[in-house]
């Protein structure tokens, strides 16, 4: 879990900037144990609470955790020897946060004027 936390921190600092903090919360996903959800500090208010983060100061990005021993067993890997961590994220959600996109539909409409704001 410490490796997972360190990795998530490194990823999100690189993506959103050094000021970003990462937080793990207990969460349930059947394929990880211990499991968690992870949040990053709100980029709009830097964690002090605003409309974007509904006052909480944190924004949920995805689920993560240590690979459930039953998952290892199902693929013939001995969980006594091997451990691993897993994390997921919603790629559109990340884009929305980074570029301040307030409506998911914009991402699938492909309006040229919208796309032109994000040159390759």
């Amino acid at each position, binding site marked *: *879990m*410490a490796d997972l936390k360190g990795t998530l921190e490194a990823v999100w600092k690189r993506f959103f900037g050094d000021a970003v903090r990462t937080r793990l919360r*207990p969460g349930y996903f059947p394929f990880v144990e211990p499991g968690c*959800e992870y949040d990053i500090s709100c980029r709009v208010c830097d964690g002090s609470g605003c409309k974007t983060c509904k006052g909480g100061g944190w924004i949920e990005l995805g689920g993560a955790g*240590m690979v459930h021993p039953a998952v290892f067993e199902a693929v013939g890997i001995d969980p006594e020897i091997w451990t691993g961590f897993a994390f997921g994220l919603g790629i559109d959600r990340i884009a929305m946060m980074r570029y301040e996109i307030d409506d998911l539909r914009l991402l699938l409409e492909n*309006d040229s004027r919208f796309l032109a704001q994000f040159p*390759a």
Partner: protein
Amino acid sequence: MLVSLSWLRALCPVDAGASEIARALTARGLTVDDHLSVGSDTVFDVDVPANRPDCLGHLGLARELAAAFAVPLPPRPEDAGVAGEPADRAVRVFVDSPELCPRYTARLVRGVRVGPSPPWVVERLQSCGLRSINNVVDASNLVLLELSQPIHTFDLDLLDEPTVRVRRAAPGEILTTLDGAERTLSPDMLVIADARRPVALAGVMGGADTEIRDSTTNVLIEAAAFLPAAVRTTARALEMKSDASHRFERGVDVEGIVEAQEMACRLLAELAGGTPAPGIVDVDSASRPERALLLRLDRVRLLLGFDPGEDSVGSALQALGLRPKSDSGEGFRVVPPSWRPDLQREADLVEEVARHMGYDAIPSRLPPAPGVPGVPSEVRAIVEDCRDVLTGFGFREAYTYSMVAEGEDDPFVPESSPTAIVLDNPIAEHLSRMRRSLLPGLVRSADLNLRRGTADVRLFEVGRIFEARPEGGLPREPIHAGWVWAGAAAPLHWGGPSRTVGFHDVAGVVEAVVESLRPRTALAISRAELGALHPGRSATWQSEGYSVATAGELHPSLRSRLDLSESIFVAEIDLSALLRLASPEPRNTALPRVPAVSRDLSVVVPEDVAFTRVLEVLESVAAPAPATFCVIDRYAGKGLQPNEAALTVRGMLQPLEKSLTDPEIEAWRAELVRALHAQLGIRIRS
């Protein structure tokens, strides 16, 4: 789930304020999404994870608070006094289907007076989003909301004999449920019946015939455990989700059933003046597997990545009610309480330790990474290169759904293609098939842009398509690149007016993309046979037997069917096929020392003769030196038949060693003219 803070405080006397309690629950994985004031109470909206059925009741959450704030839970209230004929003499219970009902209990309360509930009951229910009905029904809702154990109350005097039989429904048997709806049942549904007829749909909803009414005086209380999967099937088949079915589907605490009965009796005595009968009818076949678990301290260290110390691990387990026993300093043996079905193996206990200590206690550490940097795979490389080339041509990258409507992609794939893969649970009716082409989505996006007034629409997408395999199994998912082009061929420019995009623009991009991704690939071009494309303005490219690309103008009939405002040109490349092609390294050859010469031919070509055919004839003529050809002008209109075009073809000769003489060149030119006329009936334009 809506949770009343005053109710929580009544179960677990914590001093902390509402915000602090909300934070504590959230930190323990019971996320408080929102909290608001209802009267003098505070209501939390708690997101209870699917593996914590115990927390679908206030007591479960109170246990978490007790652990979080180190406050002992007060003992449960004393049992209500009993009198009268014992329950097991007044009613008989038969469980015919123990596989669907591991435990069924019944208690009786006599002499109730049905009427309104006192204000504290009304307020508690209100906080939890429920309306007060009457004191008997409210009592059962209070039990459900406190213990997460649904109970049902029957009017005892309306039960035939009085007998309770838990059995599968007979085919076509009918039950009118509490909501007034008449339900037709099937044998995969479990019912509670009396001697004659079904009186409740087990775990889902009671029946109207035996419901509590103003005249009810004697009540039979049912508290049971039903098989979660069976309740789910029934609730789904009849489309009737209830607070009870929600809890049965997640599993109830088999050991908590007796306490649920006791609480119900207590409330019926207190709220409705009833007198509980002594005893409980208990038909119990539930299996109770031994759940002793070992938690090794080295597994805690390994999975959490830090060492919390034996004492912290022990006190976390203690606080959570797991009654840890030290195992010779190596770890702890625990027996999880019956209300924690989620604790099945060691890793679950590791999570419990972390949850109790708080995930903030987990340090942050970057794992060591191998010192060899990764290189992009072949697939990744071609996808990135393709994006770069198309972006360079002024296309913008689009992103569309991988799903299409039934039949939407039919015209975009060859007729011989396997049928589209059908989704079992589509997110919408118009997204029920996996796409076999990127073009339907891109065409839709192009149309949207045109309607919004964009003059030059150029969009591309790189993504997977999905093709069922004739032999079955998982589908093929080749990567394609597709693009659409509509409106102007180029942005506005002071050099002159802009053309409208045409077939040769989009075909040119196909060849440029292929040349860029797999240089020197030999392509054979032929007419495309796709329903979506204009038969005279479309083409398909092949190489080494693979179909590599298709491009063209949308067929006018498809355009009118889709109600498109303008003509749209489309192209699609199979990048996975390109990856299979060899792309030889270039080799230097000596440059010729003598100049090239050229001759132009202006010829009139009938519309039905493809230029590739013209080229074949020209290239078949014996030349005095290596020859190449290109079109330098095309004309159609005045002076020609409507089905003709005039092409000016430049033929170039590049001698390798000695210069050519005029007679040699002219003889070649004459032979070109003769061959075109003889083989294709093409005449020279005068």
